[in-house]
């Protein structure tokens, strides 16, 4: 009765996405994939900062004025954001999105201090109240966003939905953040390539994965170069400046949201990121600014 691997690609969360799953026939595969995509779209609609009706946009619009009531899922994500803020010693801060206003990666130009400073004043997780009446941003102009882990959360949720539906083989890939449902049909792991951070056409390593999740953060998706220096889109919430040191950090963890958070925190911690990765008990592969590969368990 079972099964063959079916594959479906789609666009969501501004990324190229792919789902591979085992199903007895194309029709069943279609139904399952549609449910998974709907779950991804539900999360995108609910939390996108680009949609004015999303809960995130409503919280941001009410900044400095009033608390916005939120449901238990949003509350759980806020609690997760709080845990990340603590685990990263303040570096992973979901209020730091405002800093993007100072950086336009299409033009190689450093922001002026008088642009950056007022934005830095709007950053601060401690200025977010999560109470019984909802979420309140204390200062007008403040913003939160779940971009730092929303895609990974969606990958985990979509995979959980497919697992619940009885799927035993396959994975969910949302723009490179991958959550695995199970190995290939023959029991062998999937072999997943890691993109070379300096050559978009090639793969620098590959890794066998059957379970858990694999995510990669890097300095190569959005960046510009100026005077031989690379400025990437991952910004330090204290200085407002792009992080340096790592070209790419890939982490293998039981869940995509945990893997993604660890790879981002490693990027944010720069040199100290290696200590963090070593302490995290997760498998990783990281490439530093010298092009050296550092890895464990893969």
């Amino acid at each position, binding site marked *: 009765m079972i099964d063959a691997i079916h594959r479906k690609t789609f666009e969501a969360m501004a990324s190229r996405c792919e789902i591979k799953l085992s199903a007895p026939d194309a029709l069943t595969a279609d139904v399952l994939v549609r449910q998974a995509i709907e779950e991804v779209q539900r999360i995108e609609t609910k939390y996108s900062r680009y949609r004015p009706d999303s809960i995130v946009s409503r919280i941001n619009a009410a900044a400095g004025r009033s608390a916005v009531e939120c449901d*238990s*899922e949003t509350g*759980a*994500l806020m*609690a*997760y954001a709080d*845990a*990340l803020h*603590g*685990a*990263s*010693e303040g570096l992973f801060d979901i209020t730091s999105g405002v800093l993007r206003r100072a950086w336009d990666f299409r033009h190689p130009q450093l922001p002026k201090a008088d642009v950056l400073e007022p934005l830095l004043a709007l950053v601060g997780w401690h200025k977010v109240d999560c109470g019984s009446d909802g979420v309140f941003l204390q200062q007008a102009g403040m913003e939160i966003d779940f971009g730092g882990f929303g895609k990974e*959360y969606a990958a*985990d*949720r979509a*995979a*959980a*939905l497919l*697992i*619940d539906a009885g*799927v*035993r*083989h396959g994975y969910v890939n949302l723009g490179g953040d991958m959550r*695995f*449902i*199970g*190995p290939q049909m023959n*029991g062998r*792991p999937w072999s997943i390539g890691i993109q070379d951070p300096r050559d978009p056409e090639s793969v620098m390593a590959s890794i*066998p*994965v*059957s*379970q*858990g*999740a694999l995510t990669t953060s890097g300095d190569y998706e959005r960046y510009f170069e100026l005077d031989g220096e690379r400025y990437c889109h991952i910004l330090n919430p204290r200085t407002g400046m792009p992080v340096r040191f790592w070209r790419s950090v890939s982490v*293998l*963890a*039981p*869940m995509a*949201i*945990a893997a993604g*958070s*660890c790879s981002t*925190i490693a990027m944010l911690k720069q040199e100290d990121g290696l*200590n*963090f990765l070593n*302490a*995290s*008990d*997760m*498998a990783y592969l990281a490439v530093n600014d010298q092009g050296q590969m550092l890895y464990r*368990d893969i």
Partner: protein
Amino acid sequence: MTSCDNNQQPNQQALAASILAAALLLPGLQVHAETPPANGVISLGYLDYRDSQSGLDRIRVHAPSISVMAPIAGVWSVSGSVVVDDVSGASPRYHTAISGASHMDDNRKAGDASLTRYFDRGTLTVGGAYSTEHDYVSRALSLQGSVESESHNTTWTAGIGHADDRIDPVNHVVTNERKRSTNFLLGVTQVLTTNDIGQLTLTHDEGEGYFSDPYKTFDNRPRSRSESTLLARWNHHIASTGATSRLSYRYYHDSFGVRGHTLGGEYVQPLSQGWSVAPELRLYTQSAASFYYDPIYDARLGAPFPPGYNGSGYMSADQRLSGFGAVTLGLKVSKQLDKLWSVDVKASAYQQRGSWRLFHEGSPGLEALRAQTIQIAVNRQW
């Protein structure tokens, strides 16, 4: 510089671990019950246990439990199980000849978790367990590793564990008592032929603290106990009929003076259409602890009045420390429903009597203890 790093290291570790812990709290995400590759098992069991003594219903336990074991991300596996028992019934009587059962109503909460790291030719497992009743808190940590020979025919296992219990009985016979024990395990498993596998396991347990039963009067046991166990097992597969026999022998010895021998045998015979039957027989005999005293029945004062005094000050009338023999008979019938699902029912009867003790006379004056257990389990294999 270095001292700073040293301070930072465990801190970093805790911070990193907190991410996974926080992720586990998010709604609708699964980490456990996901597709383990070849051999993950989830089983839902229901245990109904009843024991009786001369017609009195004593203890009944209903324990719905669910346990999962699933490898994750290739190199790690998380396993955990949570059991909540309701225990309601009379506590075992002070010698079974006397009436005066106290009522027991414990609500036990327990959980355990372990993390296994897989290597090419071995595993390393770290585990923790926590269990609490309203008068008892138990915490345990364990570390166990195994190494396989290059041919995969021999596996050596070694482990160490530590448990720390706190005892605070409701009758305040003692308060805030503790019991600490450390245990060691050494084992070897050897594939003998294509149809035979043998295993030898040696365990040793050193304990210190409160071993007495606070709910029994005249119960005073030594504050240290060392126990050793040798377990030998031999599984044999009979290729012509597809059956498997499992034989085991266990020798137990402790510093209380208890020596026990257990001989067990089980025979699994697969039948057609997914059915299989497995009869089981277990014989047990043990000597009494050195400070166990027999009940004495006084015609005038009633029974029993413990003389107890033996010079050491230690005494116990706990039936489990008496000399006795016991027989367990069981039958398990299981049916494989399809590739994934199976159901099994196991019925067993247990009877223990002082007079059944082998080699020596058993403890007199105890009534036979009988127990019947019926266990139903539904298993799903991926």
